[in-house]
């Protein structure tokens, strides 16, 4: 990281810390939502940017954790403890990722994209067609999880400022964890798989196991994000698992720039804010969004953190086979 970048990062962090003191509830809640999406996007970056696995079904793990939170409550008015329901949700997402990954990783390339999409669609139908949690309508969660440790009241998830800071801590901890992971031998092996899997296998790495481990970790962290997303909105429905959600988070990763985690955070901010802006302009904002997506991928193939516009490559013509 260059000096300028480090200064910029520090400045951004300070701005995030100071935000609740500077603005009202609306922006505090919006930025909390973005930080949750940023954690979600970082988990996908571990697969797409680091390991080179393009998953189009990442919302399955995000959504499952939200559903586990709802199902963990004995009835919908009873508050569950954060300290039991959160591990439960994350473990459920990790297990689902382990199973889906074990099957999907038998394929590669474009098959992998289609298979991850199809499996997430299967999870979608589990919650859409059966009555486990309200079917296609979804379910409300009337009380936030309580965070007491013994008799010590720690913080209140229903308070939007408390929730905001909890999400800021979550973002920083997830970022630090993934950074450490990437700097480790494991992280280097994943990068090796991305650049040349054949060679990694020849070097004696069990690449399948490495990829499966990455897929499971990514699923668990996506679950972490999904859990808090359900907490924030007090509501889960199958749309949390829809493939639009999976495509959205993939967009964040590529919009920000892949493989360095910071890009995923930048991408989450850029995409959610753009969506907010467009939807305030017109009813048919998805038209603008579609154009924005196409322009962003064509002009910024390395993302906002990956250097300048790719005018030249684009104009020189990538036409032809």
């Amino acid at each position: 990281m260059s000096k300028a970048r480090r200064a910029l990062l520090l400045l951004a962090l300070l701005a995030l810390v100071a935000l609740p003191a500077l603005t009202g509830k609306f922006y505090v809640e919006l930025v909390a939502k973005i930080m949750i999406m940023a954690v979600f996007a970082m988990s996908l970056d571990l697969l797409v940017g680091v390991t080179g696995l393009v998953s189009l079904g990442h919302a399955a793990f995000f959504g499952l954790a939200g559903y586990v939170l709802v199902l963990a409550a004995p009835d919908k008015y009873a508050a569950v403890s954060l300290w039991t329901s959160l591990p439960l949700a994350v473990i459920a997402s990790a297990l689902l990722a382990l199973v889906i990954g074990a099957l999907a990783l038998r394929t590669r390339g474009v098959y992998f994209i289609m298979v991850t999409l199809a499996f997430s669609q299967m999870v979608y139908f589990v919650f859409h067609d059966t009555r486990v949690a309200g079917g296609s309508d979804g379910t409300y969660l009337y009380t936030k999880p309580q965070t007491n440790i013994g008799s010590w009241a720690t913080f209140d998830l229903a308070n939007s400022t408390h929730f905001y800071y909890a999400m800021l801590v979550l973002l920083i901890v997830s970022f630090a964890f993934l950074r450490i992971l990437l700097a480790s031998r494991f992280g280097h092996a994943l990068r090796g798989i991305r650049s040349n899997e054949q060679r990694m296998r020849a070097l004696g790495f069990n690449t399948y196991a490495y990829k499966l481990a990455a897929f499971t970790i990514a699923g668990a962290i996506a679950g972490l994000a999904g859990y808090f997303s359900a907490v924030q909105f007090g509501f889960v429905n199958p749309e949390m698992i829809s493939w639009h959600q999976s495509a959205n988070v993939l967009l964040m990763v590529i919009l920000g720039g892949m493989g360095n985690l910071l890009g995923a955070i930048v991408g989450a901010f850029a995409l959610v804010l753009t969506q907010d802006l467009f939807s305030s302009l017109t009813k048919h904002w998805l038209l603008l969004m579609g154009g924005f997506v196409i322009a962003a991928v064509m002009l910024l193939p390395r993302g906002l953190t990956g250097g300048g516009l790719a005018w030249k490559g684009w104009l020189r013509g990538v036409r032809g086979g």
Partner: protein
Amino acid sequence: MDIQVFLIQVLNSVQYGLLLFLVASGLTLIFGIMGVINLAHGSFYMLGAYAAFVLSSLTGSLFWAISLGTVLAVAFGYLLEWAFFSFLYRRDHLQQVLLTYGLILVFEELRSVAVGDDVHGVPVPAALSASIPLGSTMSYPVYNLFISAACLTVAALLFLLLRRSRLGMMIRAGASNREMTRSLGIDINFVFRIVFALGVALAAFAGMVNAPASSVYPGMGNQVLIVCFVVVVIGGIGSVSGALVAALLIGFIDTFGKVFLPDYSGMLVYLLMAVILVWRPEGLFRQRAV
């Protein structure tokens, strides 16, 4: 289950399977030959259905609507390949996924601007509106038989085109070795354009012919798209005959699943895919050129 119910379900399975085949064959051809994963392929099905709705109310006849719509679809596909998809060939799969996803948003929203977000029905033509009585209480609509017959005809024509014509030979050559085909003096860019237009027309035709039997509604393309991915994965990418077998298999599993396990029918198709992935990760019919 008595024999009439069974027969009806078999006919429904075949009809659904053939419709899936028409959409999935274009998807698998476009991937097999151009190497492009096209998420917007379901949109062509959706656009076809809406074209049937608009054109049949303009012309007053479904047959004119389908004929006109097919010609329009070919032209649309040809143009779209030139204006958009030809820029995707050298990009990686990730970019292709996102660019074609952006295209879905554009198509869905243009549809919303032009026709609105309501659910529409398309009237069944009078000549085909009868029903064949089966037993004392049940009947089967003639139009559904027409759908199967039309899809079967188109599928047969497609196989004839691919296996027996000069163009089909070029397409098969392009699928097995692009560079060699080009060096033999075949204009591969022209082949790409034709294949893409063909894929668009097949998907749009499926949407048009099925419009009177189902309804026409927003988001209908996405549902078809994801099932077609499963068809392509099961059949083996690039294999049109694999797509036919897989589409019929899914037609049967889905239709009979809705009868026997109504709560779980949405999942069955994906479970089938999981089983096949364990058994044969590269699909049932891998790499048999077209």
